[in-house]
C-alpha cells in the first residue's frame, strides 16, 4: 500500500522496513518527515488541524508516486500523511523512496514532497493565542514544484 491517510501517528523505522521488504536490489532509502512547528509567521502555534478531501487525496498521492516512478529509476515509494488535530513536534507526513542508488532516491523523494505540497488536497488550520487561522499557500512552494 504505497499511500495512506490516517489520524494515527506512524513509526518511521517500521514504515521503512516495510518499504524495503527484504528486497536486496535496494541500495538506497531516501526519506523525509515533516513535523508541526510551534511557531509560524512569528505567532505561536498551539495546535494544528489538518483537513483533506477524502477520495481525491489518495488518488492525488498515488498519481504523484506514479510520476516519480516514471521520472526516476526507483523501485518503490511510500507516502503516509496524517489528518486531524496535531500538536507541535508531531509528525505530519512521511515520504520515502527506495532505489538502487542515492541520487535517484533523493531526487524522487524531493519531487514527491514538492508535488505533494502543491497538488495534494490537504489544508492546515492553526490554533494560536489570537484564535484560529487557515495557513496560506506559499508562492515559494509553487516555485519549488515548477523546477521539476
Amino acid at each position: 500500500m504505497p499511500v495512506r491517510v490516517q489520524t494515527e501517528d506512524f513509526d518511521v523505522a517500521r514504515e521503512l522496513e516495510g518499504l524495503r521488504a527484504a528486497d536486496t536490489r535496494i541500495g538506497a532509502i531516501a526519506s523525509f518527515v515533516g513535523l508541526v512547528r510551534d511557531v509560524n509567521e512569528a505567532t505561536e502555534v498551539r495546535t494544528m488541524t489538518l483537513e483533506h478531501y477524502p477520495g481525491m487525496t489518495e488518488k492525488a498521492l498515488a498519481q504523484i508516486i506514479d510520476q516519480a516512478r516514471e521520472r526516476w529509476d526507483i523501485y518503490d515509494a511510500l507516502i503516509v500523511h496524517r489528518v486531524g488535530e496535531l500538536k507541535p513536534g508531531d509528525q505530519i507526513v512521511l515520504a520515502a523512496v527506495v532505489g538502487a542508488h542515492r541520487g535517484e532516491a533523493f531526487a524522487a523523494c524531493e519531487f514527491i514532497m514538492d508535488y505533494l505540497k502543491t497538488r495534494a488536497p490537504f489544508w492546515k488550520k492553526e490554533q494560536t493565542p489570537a484564535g484560529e487561522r487557515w495557513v496560506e499557500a506559499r508562492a515559494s512552494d509553487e516555485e519549488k514544484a515548477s523546477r521539476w
Partner: protein
Amino acid sequence: MVQLVYLARLREVFGVAAESVELPREVGTVAALLAWLRARGGAWAAELAPGRAVRVAVNHDIARGETPVRAGDEIALFPPVTGG
C-alpha cells in the same frame, strides 16, 4: 444534477459543505460554473471573484477553466493546498 463540494476555508465562508444543484444548460465548463456561482452575490461573489486563488477538482482530478462539467459530476472548490 451535480454535486458541489466546498472544502477548508471556502466551506466555512459559504457555510455549506456540499450541495446538489441542477446546472442551467449553458453552464458546461468550470469557468461557467464559477461565473454562475458568483451571481449568487455576497461571499460567493467575493471569494470566487476573478483573480482570487480558487482551485477546482472535477471527479477528483484538478480541473481548469475549460474543463467540462456534466450531470453526475462531483465538483469540488477549495483554496490552494497547504499539506505536507
